[in-house]
């Protein structure tokens, strides 16, 4: 049996989109914004690459709270899980969110993390784990995700085979606008599964009448009507079956099946005339559609029942032609797939601009292999295989580009080495010379600073004398020394003059001392500015010198190792891609063979029926019946 939660996927998709993290309204971290930019375009590899790097860097910081990512950290943790899920990395998805759950954060944040984790577990087909995550939600739940949580809980119950519990939850969600149609449909299914068939059918009837112009809601409404109609048809309640099928839109994914089923409901009620309308409409549609092909037999069958054998014979003849052409198409498709064209068509870039590109594959010229596979390609399993194939193709292209990149890196390194290595010895020699001069000057400056510092505590005015004053003081000292050994009146007069001059100088040194000290400090500050500039230049030089070496040294081993990693990964990717491609081709061929067998059976029926109709027409004609 198909797992029940697989037919609820549309409902979950809506819930997931409703809870998608809001865009960075106030972006504080540009690299996080870049990850969103990539993710918004569906480039999940690039988004993950960016976000993984940002988160790793953020977590390695000593003070992560000062990092710009801190402002978005919860959204980043949640987004990484979302991106992993969307990149179909289910095994990895959820690790970051689990970390949030185990961290010391507020309960509302934990609640949101638990919800997101539950959603991931559910999508990973692990409903038990999803329920465990949901059970961690306590206390206040943010309004914007309250309904989504309950809807998910109901889906988890259904997946766990607890439809009664699911129905209880879904009953409470019937008023939720964001789940309009989905909650109603799922409640109908839950009631049917829990054995409350009449109530379930009534609920599906309600879900089939939901009023909405939303594409997704209209699609689930169609689905409700299809399920209800088919159940009614099985229980031979043709009037209600027809009512349900009639409510399916004439343009939509279920329209062909609905038209076919409407006709069968009429035929089952023995109203062949009414069956002509939907089937007549249907046979003009896409000839590769299974419902259309069936209608091509069903319509003449109805005419036959109405005893219009001539028209029936003509239509059977047309059906026969059509089936022949379709068989040729199927055979062409089979040949094309076996020639590898299907995989080539899937990787064509020009059609992948939007998310319905699989449907548009049919519009590509020269791709007959895709005509019969649109329906198959829309199935979950095939989609996973197909997306994996495309992801592997993307990885292959990246790895090839990286391999080429290594050659470019090595060229760059070689050129840098050739440029810098001859220059550096001369630069280093000159630098050593300048470095020693600089050290001497810096020592002198330090000495001056120390002396000035000492003057603050022990004033020594003579230390601030000018050069002329020092020379004058020295001369006066020598004169004083000479006068000590002389005598006489002239000596006394000279002694007096000398003392007078000494007094003048001392007076000047002492009275001007504060200004001189202030000036000396100002000069020192000015010197400090120059020294700072010098040191900046020195640091810049050292950094540039290091950068020059770092621009070419130490990469050889790294590049060799990475080249090996890339080569190994490329080999694995290519092997996996070939296997995945083979699986896709095999599934496609199986599908085409099924369609082929069905067409052959139709062809056989048409062949017998056309002969039978002609016979009957002739008999009618012979007996004078109406034609």
């Amino acid at each position, binding site marked *: 049996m198909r797992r029940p939660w697989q037919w609820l996927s549309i409902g979950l998709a809506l819930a997931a989109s409703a809870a998608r993290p809001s865009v960075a309204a106030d972006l504080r971290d540009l690299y996080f*914004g870049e990850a969103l930019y990539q993710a918004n375009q569906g480039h999940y590899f690039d988004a993950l690459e960016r976000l993984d790097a940002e988160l790793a860097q953020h977590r390695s910081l000593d003070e992560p709270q000062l990092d710009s990512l801190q402002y978005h950290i919860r959204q980043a943790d949640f987004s990484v899980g979302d991106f992993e899920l969307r990149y179909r990395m289910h095994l990895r998805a959820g690790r970051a969110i689990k970390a949030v759950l185990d961290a010391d954060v507020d309960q509302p944040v934990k609640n949101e993390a638990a919800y997101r984790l539950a959603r991931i577990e559910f999508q990973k087909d692990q409903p038990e784990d999803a329920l465990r995550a949901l059970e961690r939600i306590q206390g206040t739940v943010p309004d914007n995700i309250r309904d989504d949580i309950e809807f998910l809980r109901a889906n988890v119950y259904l997946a766990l085979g607890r439809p009664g519990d699911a129905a209880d939850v879904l009953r409470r969600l019937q008023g939720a606008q964001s789940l309009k149609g989905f909650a109603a449909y799922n409640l109908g299914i839950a009631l049917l599964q829990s054995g409350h068939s009449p109530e379930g059918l009534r609920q599906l009837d309600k879900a089939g009448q939901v009023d909405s112009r939303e594409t997704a809601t209209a699609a689930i409404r169609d689905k409700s009507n299809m399920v209800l109609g088919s159940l009614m048809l099985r229980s031979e309640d043709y009037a209600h079956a027809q009512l349900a099928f009639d409510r399916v839109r004439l343009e939509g994914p279920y329209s062909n099946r609905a038209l076919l089923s409407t006709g069968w409901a009429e*035929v089952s009620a023995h109203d062949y005339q009414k069956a002509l309308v939907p089937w007549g409409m249907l046979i003009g549609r896409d000839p590769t559609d299974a419902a259309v092909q069936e209608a091509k037999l069903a319509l003449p069958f109805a005419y036959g029942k109405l005893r219009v054998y001539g028209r029936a014979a003509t239509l059977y003849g047309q059906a026969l032609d059509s089936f022949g052409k379709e068989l040729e198409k199927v055979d062409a498709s089979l040949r094309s797939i076996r020639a590898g064209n299907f995989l080539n068509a899937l990787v064509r870039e020009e059609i992948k601009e939007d998310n319905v590109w699989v449907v548009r594959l049919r519009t590509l010229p020269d791709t007959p292999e895709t005509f019969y596979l649109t329906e198959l390609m829309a199935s979950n399993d095939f989609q996973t*295989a197909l997306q994996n194939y495309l992801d*592997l193709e993307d990885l292959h292209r990246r790895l090839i580009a990286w391999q080429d990149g290594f050659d470019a890196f090595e060229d760059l390194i070689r050129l840098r080495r050739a440029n810098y290595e001859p220059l550096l010895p001369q630069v280093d020699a000159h630098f050593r010379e300048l470095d020693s001069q600089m050290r001497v000057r810096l020592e002198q400056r330090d000495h001056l600073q120390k002396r000035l510092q000492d003057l603050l505590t022990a004033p020594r005015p003579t230390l601030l004398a000018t050069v002329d004053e020092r020379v004058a003081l020295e001369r006066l000292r020598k004169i004083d020394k000479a006068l000590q050994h002389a005598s006489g009146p002239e000596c006394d007069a000279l002694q007096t003059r000398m003392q007078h001059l000494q007094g003048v100088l001392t007076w000047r040194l002492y009275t001007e001392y504060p200004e001189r000290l202030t000036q000396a400090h100002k000069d020192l500050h000015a010197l400090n500015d120059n020294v700072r500039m010098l040191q900046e230049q020195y640091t810049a030089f050292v950094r540039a010198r290091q950068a020059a070496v770092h621009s070419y040294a130490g990469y050889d081993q790294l590049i060799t190792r990475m080249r090996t990693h890339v080569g190994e990964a490329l080999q694995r990717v290519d092997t996996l891609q070939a296997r995945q491609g083979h699986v896709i081709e095999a599934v496609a061929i199986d599908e085409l063979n099924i369609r082929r067998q069905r067409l052959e059976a139709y062809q056989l029926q048409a062949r017998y029926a056309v002969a039978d109709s002609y016979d009957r027409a002739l008999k009618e004609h012979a007996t004078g019946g109406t034609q």
Partner: protein
Amino acid sequence: MRKHFLVVMSALLCICARTSPADESARAQMKGLDEQVQEVKSDVLSIAAELNQLEEKLLYPSDTHLAVFVSLAQGETLRLDAIQIRIDGGLATHYIYSFKELDALRRGGAQRLYSGNIATGAHEIEVSVSGKLANGKDYTQTERFPFTKEIKPKLLGVVLAGPGAAQPGIHLGDW
């Protein structure tokens, strides 16, 4: 024939279709492959991270690294067609937007428009944008901003808003 038709029809409509052992086998094979694909994706992501570091070290050392990002103001309806960046008068880059890229910007993404190298010191960036307003009128705008490159990598964020926005025009944020 009617019976046959009903069987076909119910197969089409059945919500709980049975799967054959062959289907189960194919599904198991697909699941096994899927797990291996997930592993190789993880490995290639690790390689990409390491390669990015190597590329940044080799091509954009931190002391010269300049990166310019572009984003749209919240709720902005301007249809951005193209942008051009000049640094110190020289053309750094120009870019024409696809619908998908514009949508990604409108939903809060920031595009890394330019990565390059620049010397430390004072510089000037000129941003020119062209596009269409919600009313269909053409919109062009050019702004110049001074900035200083220090030793650490320089990240500049250009935020664009049309004339109807709360803070219209081109704004430069420094990160």
